[in-house]
C-alpha cells in the first residue's frame, strides 16, 4: 500500500499537466517537456501479446504431457528442469537474446517470415534483428516455465474419476484430456496465463536489451520499439527535470496497477480451481 502511495505522490506533476492525455499522445521528448506514454504502452502490450501467442500453446502442451502422459518419474525430472529454467535470471535471457537470438532473427527468421508472409503488415520493413518480435520471443521463453508448472499442478489436481468416466464412455486418450480434463482445469490454466502475462508486462532487463529502445508505434513486428519497464530502466537515473522524472514514475504506477490486477485475478482463479479439484469429484 505504501508502494502505491509513493508512486501516486511521485507522479502528481504529469497527472496535473497532461491528465488523461498522458496515455493518448505519442510524443516523448524530454527536451521540450512533452511526455506521452502511448508508444511505451503499445510496445509493452505488443511484446507481451507476441510472447503469449508463442508461450501459451507450447506451455499448455508441455503441461498436458507432464500431467497426463509422462510417468511420474519422468514428469518429476522434467519439472525439476522447468523449475531451474524459471530460476534463470532475466539478465541472462537478455544476454542470450542480444548475442544469439538477435543475429538469428536478422539472418534467418525475419527474412524467412518476410519471404513467406511479407504481404501482412505485421512482417514488413527491414530486418534489424532487434524489435517487438525478438522481444516477444525472448519473453515467451521466459514465461513458459511459469505456464508449465502451474498448469501441471492444476491438471494434476483434476480428480481421477473425471478421466476414467471419459475413457469408459469410449473417448480416446486425447479426447478425455482435451474435452474433460482441460475444461475442468480451465480456471487454473487461465490463471497461469495471467501470471505469465503479468510477468511479461513487467519484465525489464531482457526486453530492454533486445527491443530496440525507440519510442515509436509501428504495425510491423520487425521494427524496434520500447516498453514501459525498459524506458524506466533507461531514463530514471538520468531524468532531466521533475516532469520527466515524474512521468517515468507515472509509467511505473501504470505498470504496477496492470500487473497488480492481473496477479490478483490469477491467484483467485488458481485457488478456486484447485479447491474445486480437491474438494469434490463432480462439477
Amino acid at each position, binding site marked *: 500500500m505504501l508502494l502505491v502511495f509513493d*508512486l501516486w505522490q511521485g507522479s502528481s506533476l504529469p497527472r496535473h499537466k497532461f491528465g488523461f492525455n498522458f496515455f493518448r499522445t505519442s510524443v516523448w521528448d524530454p527536451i521540450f517537456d512533452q511526455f506521452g506514454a502511448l508508444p511505451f504502452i503499445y510496445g509493452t502490450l505488443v511484446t507481451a501479446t507476441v510472447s503469449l501467442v508463442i508461450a501459451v500453446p507450447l506451455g*499448455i502442451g508441455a503441461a498436458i504431457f507432464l500431467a497426463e502422459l509422462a510417468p511420474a518419474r519422468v514428469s518429476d525430472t522434467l519439472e525439476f528442469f522447468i523449475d531451474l529454467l524459471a530460476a534463470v535470471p532475466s539478465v541472462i535471457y537478455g544476454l542470450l537474446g542480444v548475442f544469439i537470438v538477435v543475429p538469428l532473427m536478422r539472418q534467418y527468421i525475419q527474412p524467412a517470415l518476410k519471404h513467406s508472409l511479407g504481404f501482412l503488415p505485421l512482417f514488413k520493413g527491414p530486418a534489424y534483428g532487434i524489435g517487438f518480435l525478438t522481444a516477444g520471443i525472448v519473453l515467451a521463453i521466459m514465461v513458459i516455465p511459469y505456464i*508449465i508448472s502451474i498448469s501441471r499442478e492444476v491438471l494434476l489436481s483434476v480428480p481421477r474419476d473425471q478421466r476414467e468416466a471419459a475413457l469408459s464412455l469410449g473417448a480416446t486418450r*486425447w479426447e478425455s484430456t482435451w474435452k474433460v480434463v482441460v475444461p475442468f482445469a480451465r480456471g487454473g490454466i487461465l490463471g497461469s496465463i495471467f501470471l505469465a502475462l503479468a510477468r511479461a508486462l513487467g519484465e525489464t532487463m531482457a526486453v530492454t536489451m533486445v527491443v530496440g529502445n525507440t519510442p515509436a508505434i509501428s504495425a510491423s513486428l520487425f521494427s524496434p520499439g520500447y516498453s514501459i519497464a525498459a524506458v524506466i530502466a533507461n531514463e530514471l537515473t538520468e531524468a532531466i527535470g521533475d516532469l520527466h522524472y515524474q512521468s517515468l514514475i507515472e509509467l511505473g504506477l501504470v*505498470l504496477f496497477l496492470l500487473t497488480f490486477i492481473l496477479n490478483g485475478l490469477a491467484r483467485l482463479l488458481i485457488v478456486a480451481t484447485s479447491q474445486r479439484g480437491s474438494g469434490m469429484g463432480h462439477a
Partner: protein
Amino acid sequence: MSPRLRWRKFVSGFMLGMTGVCALVSVSVLFLILGYLVYHGGTSVSWNFFTKLPAPVGETGGGMANAIVGSAKLLLLAALIGVPVGFFGAIYLAEFSGSTTAFVVRYAADLLNGVPSIVIGIFAYSLAVLPFKHFSTLSGGFALGLMMIPITLRSTEEFLRSVPNALREAAMALGASKSKTIATVIVPAAYRGILTAILLAFARVAGETAPLLFTAFGNRFWSQGWNQPTAALPEMIYRYAISPYDDWHRQAWAAGLVLLGLILVINIVARAILSRGIAVPRT
C-alpha cells in the same frame, strides 16, 4: 475399425505426440542456455576474472572482483532484511493469526511477489536514494531485501503449516509455552523446509538486475563503503552486454556463466535438502 474411429485414434496419437514435443522443446531451452554460456564464457572464466578490477575502457583483460564482492554485500544486506521479516512473519501467520488475516497477508505477499522488479526499484529509489542524494550499497540491499520478503514468507509459512498438529499438542501437553513450542519443536521440525525457502529466495534475488540500476547503480572500482555505489554481477552483465567492446562481451558471458552456475547450484542444493524430507519424526 471404422474410418471415424481410426481418425479419432490418429488425432489422439498425433496431439499427444505434439504435447511431448512441446515438453521437449521447453526443457531443451535450459540446456541450450547452459551450452551457450559454457561455450562463450567458459574460456573467459579465469583467475583474473575473480581477482582483478575491470580494466580501463579500451584495454583488454581485467576481471570483476569488485562486482563479485558487491553482489555478496548486496545479498548479505538483502538477507538481513528479507530473512527475519519473512521468517517471523511466517511464524505469525502459521501459528498465531486467524484465518482471515492469514488469507489477506498471504494474498498481499503473493501480489508483492508479482510486482515487477523495476517498480520495486523505483520504490527503493525514491525512499532510499533520493533523500540521500546518492546511490548506495544500502539502498540496493534494501530493494533486494524487499523482494526477498514475500518469497521467504510464503514458502516458510507453507512448511510450518505442514508440521503435524500432533507435535504442537504434544509439546503443549508437556507444559511448554507457545513460544517455547515454536522455538524448540515446530521450527526444528520444519528447518529443512525453511532453509530451502531461504535459499530459493536468495537465488531469486541474486540474479535481479532491474532494481539495482537505480540503487546500487554500479561502479568500476572497489566500492568506497556501504554508503557508496557498488557493482554487482547481474548489473555488470547488463552493462557489458550492451557495450560495443568485444572484450566486454566476452566478460559478460563469463559473468553470466558464473552467475547462472551459482544460482543453479543454490537451487539444486535447496531441492536436495528438501527431498530428504522434512525432518518430522514418524508417528
